[in-house]
């Protein structure tokens, strides 16, 4: 059952299309993230829902009712901003009370709701503080309490954690997940941080050049990227130039520039026989073997050009015979890596089912 319905929405600034024909249906209580690089249209789409921009075309409906034409203050939407937007001259409690006061709610209800919201974000002891006395993380939690105080059915969050350091970010992500569970509010979350998107949301909509490239659960985006952009943006990837030698329904055989041939790579679309293509393989799916010994398994020859130990993993870079760098990650707990040193001639292999082929 669709709660928020974004239908064929476009937004042009002069001759520039910031958002092109974006459609998305979001169910009540869902947590959806708009992920994408800056300038991809994710924030613009959010601002159209908030009412800061009117779309050039398309429609946005909440619970079946069109919201376009309603000013922001009549949309009854909650929002947490990228920068700290607490009202600097009001206490924490007064900040949370503000949306209730402009709605002329009775004093008793305001007091009860403020208490409830501050308890929700675990800042009850800070009710009488001024915003300037709070840390950045605390300020964003108050902003969250303020945005939820009037029980809006939809909460928009515009990169709310980008000003915080990594540790604090992870802490508040956990808070946001908990609050989402406890309140059941529908959340639309904008971020350019793919880890944040994957860890927070039920579904991720990946934006690029004003369009949605793919929508799905985080794991789907990671494991079954439908475009080269998705594959490159979500998680780390290697792209190896190759030519499609043969192709059947869902799989293709490819030939690398050094002549080595690899059968059975899955194809989503495109990649006709004879076409130049890019083979995507995740660094953690590449195996390193000794040259010659594993010639039976499909793969390519390479020379190790860099090895780094980064705590829980080894990070290798191998250079193929035609000069393409391949990044490889091996868990430090795996028995193998210490056998390899920079300069070793190795064979890189992988399960063909874990690679994917995209048009160049």
């Amino acid at each position, binding site marked *: 059952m669709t709660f928020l319905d974004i239908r064929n929405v476009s937004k042009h600034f002069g001759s520039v299309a910031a958002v092109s024909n974006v459609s998305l249906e979001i169910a009540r209580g869902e947590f959806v993230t708009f992920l994408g690089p800056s300038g991809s249209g994710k*924030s613009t789409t959010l601002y159209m829902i908030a009412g800061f921009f009117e779309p050039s075309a398309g429609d946005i409906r909440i619970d079946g009712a069109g919201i376009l034409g309603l000013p922001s203050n009549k949309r009854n939407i909650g929002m947490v901003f990228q920068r700290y937007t607490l009202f600097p001259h009001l206490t924490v409690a007064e900040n949370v009370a503000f949306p209730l006061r402009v709605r002329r709610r009775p004093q008793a209800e305001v007091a009860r709701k403020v208490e409830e919201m501050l308890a929700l974000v675990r800042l009850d002891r800070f009710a009488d503080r001024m915003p300037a006395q709070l840390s950045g993380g605390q300020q964003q939690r108050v902003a969250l309490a303020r945005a939820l105080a009037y029980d809006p059915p939809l909460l928009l969050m515009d990169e709310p954690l980008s000003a915080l350091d990594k540790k604090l970010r992870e802490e508040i992500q956990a808070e946001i997940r908990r609050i989402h569970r406890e309140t059941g509010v529908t959340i639309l979350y904008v971020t350019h941080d793919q880890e944040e998107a994957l860890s927070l949301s039920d579904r991720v909509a990946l934006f690029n050049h004003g369009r949605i490239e793919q929508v799905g659960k985080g794991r789907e985006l990671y494991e079954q990227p439908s475009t080269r952009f998705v594959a490159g943006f979500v998680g780390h990837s290697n792209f190896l130039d190759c030519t499609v030698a043969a192709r059947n329904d869902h799989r293709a055989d490819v030939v690398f520039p050094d002549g080595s041939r690899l059968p059975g790579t899955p194809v989503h679309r495109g990649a006709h026989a004879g076409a130049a293509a890019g083979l995507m393989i995740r660094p953690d799916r590449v195996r390193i073997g000794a040259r010659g010994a594993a010639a039976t398994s499909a793969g390519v020859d390479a020379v190790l050009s860099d090895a780094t130990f980064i705590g829980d993993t080894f990070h290798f870079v191998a250079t193929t015979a035609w000069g393409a760098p391949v990044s490889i990650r091996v868990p430090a707990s795996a028995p193998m890596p210490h056998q390899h040193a920079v300069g070793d001639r190795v064979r890189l292999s992988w399960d063909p089912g874990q690679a994917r082929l995209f048009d160049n």
Partner: protein
Amino acid sequence: MTVIDAATSTPPHAPSASSRRAARGLAAVMPAFALVSVVFVLPVLALLLRSVLEPQPGLQNYEAFFASTTYLKVLANTFLVAGTVTVVTVLLGFPVAWFLAIAPAFWSRLLFAIVILSMWTNLLARTYAWMVLLQRTGVVNRTLMGLGLISEPLPLINNLVGVTIGMTYIMLPFMILPLHATIRAIDPSVFQAAALCGASRWHALTRVFLPLTASGIAAGALMVFVMSLGYFITPALLGGTSNMMLAELIAQLVQSLLDWGLAGAAAVVLLTVTLAIYAVQLRFFGFGRAAG
């Protein structure tokens, strides 16, 4: 792409339609615009126009102004005083600004407070103080005579000496404050770098410090000069009737001689010089300094 980035990097501002926002912004400036137009632009333009319209259309007022040795002397006095005041305020203001920027907190705060207090003390009160100090039997003359340095009181008032002293007093803060900001903005490590390069203290001053503060000195000097040109009160009270400055002349022409045409011409001369100097300042230092 850049357009998209600009549109999305910070949230736009509700309410939406940009044409409505523009219209609203324009409406908000209208009271100020009406006030400044009617009570400033219109009267000033009218005055300037009178210089070429009264008593009859033509340039005779300008001819009269520039043909009269009296008026040319007034112009010369004005530039002489403004120039002297500017030079003295630079010479005194620079070390003071330097001191303010680096002295121990207590002393720099104390001096800063004195500068601010003197700047904001009522102009007439300050001018009165100098009238008292500089008069024939005033503190300055009595002190100098008491020390045996002079036998007769010096004529320090009702002449350009008095005007220059009083104006220097008034203009000093306008030199010190911007220069102080300029010096504060210099990264001290440039002097460490200069020292490591082998520069002596004198070299560091002349080759590094002064060039780095040159724009601040020039901006402050232009401001002091242009403010001095048009000053009225201090010359009127500390100066003599025989050595007028331009602003006094304009006032006299209107109040005593009722010669609006000539007053308009003198005003045009004053405004032209003022605006020319501000144009120089704007060209080289930007509007912020000119306005601030």
